[in-house]
Structure formats: C-alpha cells, structure tokens
C-alpha cells in the first residue's frame, strides 16, 4: 500500500477530518482525510483503490475497536465524518459508475418506533464498508420497505427497533417482505433483540453491534 493511502486510512480510523481539525491531537496541523483523498486522486490512484484500500479499511479498524470496547460511539462518529470528507471527492466516480459499491442496503426503524441513533450508527458503519445505504428513516411501514425493495431488488434489508413493543412490528415487516421476496436477506438489530427473537420472526441475521452487520454483509458480497 502506498504511503499516501496508509495515511488516509489512518485519518479515517483516527477521525482526522481535515487540516484545520484539531482532532486527534497527534495529527494536529497535518493533512486530513479531505486533503489526502484529493491528493491521492491527483496522483492518479484509482478511486476504487482509494475506497477499497484506505477508506473501507479505516472504517473497519474503528468498527473493530468499537466492538472490542476499545472505542466508543463518539469516535465512530468522528471517523464517519472523516470518511464523508474523503468521500465527497469520490462522489463523481460513484455517479459515473467507475466505483462499484458492494451492494445496496436498505435500512429503517420499524413503524411505531421513532428512535434513530442506533439506526444511524449502523447505516453510517455499513456505508463506510462500501455499501450504498438507502435510509428510510423512522416509523417505517411494511409497504415502504416492500416498495423500496421493488426499486432495489438485490438489496439487503436492515430493521431497527428500540422498544419491546415495537420489536414485535419487525415480525410484521419480515412477514410482508418474505411474502413477496422469500429469499430476501433481512438483518435485525436494537437493544431489546436477541438471536432467539431473530430466529422466531424468520429474519436472516441478528447482530448486537454494527460491526457484526458489516461482517455479515462482507460474506454476502463475497
């Protein structure tokens, strides 16, 4: 890996957004993800290589630290900000098709539930692992999921719920989706959930943390 890509990867992992950002103190005054990504493109490094060898590994490293309890939510969010700063330079290449995403992930908080912090963190982590994320927001009804799957037939679906009263709505959504798309992969997550509940409602995968979802999607994309 080139020195530049390694630096860029570190910036994403450590949350160094741009030159003016003072975080982390160890990189104060140095170029951040914003400048380094621009530089990498100017040096002729292919956008797909930048994404695959610097940005995704950077997010993956912070994700692993988080699931091991060595980093907390705020650090994940700062890394996401650094990733976004770099991604803005890659945007035209997504549009032109020069960069290929690993797939499309449709996510939403189930109907009846308005909590979105967990869902946002998962969406951001999955986006950082190279997937296109369609975020349907909160209080999402089954028909909205089905309608979105029609638009993105190869997508993987993610359902989030924070309450025991609303996690029951996951079952309704899974049923509606599976009626029309029996093989659709559906990930579920949220504080009150368990593997047992996931099995019971016929969802494909449960993870207690975002990194688990990323690992599952890695296998799907392979």
């Amino acid at each position, binding site marked *: 890996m080139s020195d530049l890509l390694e630096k860029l990867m570190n910036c994403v992992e450590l*949350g160094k957004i741009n030159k003016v*950002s*003072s*975080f*982390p*103190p160890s990189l104060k005054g140095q170029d951040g993800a914003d400048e380094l990504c621009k530089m990498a493109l100017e040096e002729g490094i292919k956008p797909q290589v930048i994404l695959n060898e610097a940005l995704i590994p950077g997010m993956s490293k912070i994700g692993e630290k988080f699931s091991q309890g060595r980093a*907390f*939510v*705020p*650090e994940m*969010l*700062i890394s*996401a*900000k650094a990733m*976004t700063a770099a991604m803005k330079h890659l945007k035209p290449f997504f549009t032109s098709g020069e960069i290929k995403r690993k797939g499309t992930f449709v996510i939403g908080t189930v109907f*009846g*539930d*308005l*909590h*979105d*912090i967990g869902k*946002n*963190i998962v969406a*951001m982590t999955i986006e950082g692992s190279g997937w296109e994320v369609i975020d349907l927001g909160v209080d999402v009804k089954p028909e909205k999921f089905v309608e979105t799957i029609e638009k993105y037939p190869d997508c993987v679906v993610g359902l989030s719920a924070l*309450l*025991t*009263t*609303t996690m029951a*709505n996951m079952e309704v959504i899974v049923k509606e989706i599976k009626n029309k798309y029996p093989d659709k992969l559906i990930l579920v997550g949220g*504080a*009150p959930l368990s593997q047992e509940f996931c099995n019971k409602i016929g969802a494909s995968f449960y993870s*207690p943390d975002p990194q688990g979802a990323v690992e599952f999607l890695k296998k799907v994309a392979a």
Partner: protein
Amino acid sequence: MHLTDRLEIMNVEKFSFKYRELDIKKESLIKLMGYSKESLPQMIDEEIDEVMEKGEEVCNIEGGYRITNNISWDKNNFNILLENVVLNIRRVIFQQIKKSDNVAIFVCTAGKGITDRSREFMKEGDLLKGYVYDLFGSIVVESAMDIIQDSLQKGMAILGLKISNRYSPGYCGWDVAEQRKLFSLLPEQFCGIELTDSCLMQPTKSVSGIIGIGENVKYNNYTCNICDSSNCLYKNLKYR
C-alpha cells in the same frame, strides 16, 4: 424547582425546573458515553461543553407524581392493583415494593426541544453533536427525576414514611406496553407527555414509573444486580 400545581384531592404534585437548577455534572455525560475524564478526547469534551451551554435554551423540564393508597397485591402473578388498574410489574419489582402502603406514579420530561435539536444535527450530518444532544437529554430527565424523587422522599419522611427506588416500564422485565395503564392513573396529558400507539413517550426524553411508599419500604443504593437487562444504557453507571 417550582411547584406548579398541587391537586390535593388527587394527591398530585407537579413541578417545573430551570435547567440551571439541575446542577448537571459534565462527568455524568462523559461516563454515559463510556469514557473517564482522563480518557475523553478533547474534541468530544468541547462538543459536550457546547451542548451543555445550550441547556437553558433547549430544555423545558416538567415532572410530577400522583400518590394513591388504593392498592392490592397479587403475589402469585406479581400484579399490583392500583385502583381499578392491574399492573403486571413482574417478580423483581414486585419484591422491591410489596411492602408499600402507598404508591407514587411519576412522570418527568426534559421537553421536546432536546430531541428536536438532536434530530436536526443528525439530519445535517453532524452525527456526533446529534448523539451528544441525545445523551444530554437522557441525563437531564434523569437528573430532574432525581430531584422530584428527593422531594417526595423528604415529604414522606416528615410523615414517618420511606420510599423505594423508582421503577419504570421497560426495565426489570416490566413490559413497556404497561405504560398505557400507568398513564391512565394520571391526569390527561400530565406534564405534556403523551403516548404513541406503541407506548413511546412523547417528548422522547421522558421517564415514567412507580415508587413504593410505606413504613417498611427500603431504598437500595445499588439496584443493577436485581435487573437482568444486559444492554441497559445505565447499567452500573452510578457505580463505574
């Protein structure tokens, strides 16, 4: 703290607070995020300061309780019958409050402003600030409820009574759906809090629950050991 209303007939007390009256310690927010004061990155430290400075602007804190002595107990099913409402509070909570002669049904809210602000930042892509606002809202409402509980404890002590810890639907096995029954025991839209169809409180940063009152009731300094929740945000927080 300002006692805004006292309805003697219903034994209802209602309070409103200014944010500055809560004396919220920054350390609480730091701990809730998982950090210690020493390990907190400076950038996050600054975000916390910025959010806390807006406390007065975004908070609209109200809370209160209603006391009832119309209670009966069903120890076989861990039910408490408050007036004509049966609450299945489950074994853990039942054991903690079964010696109560009175029960206070409480609610408290930090107001809608904090959640709105959190969502605005999230929408704009500033997830970190949105997240800090969200946690701040949790700390605000719990701190306000601490004061209300303290006031209740002092009031009851004058009468020679003790109070239990506070217990909420969604914790210690008590089903969140029971919140609707709990709210039916309070005046309508008490403290401006409403329930959605799925029993989610609006404003989101609100708490509700019950507190046992009686001569033989005990307050426990440590209660996380009685709860089997493995993913509670507050698990062992006070003892970290």
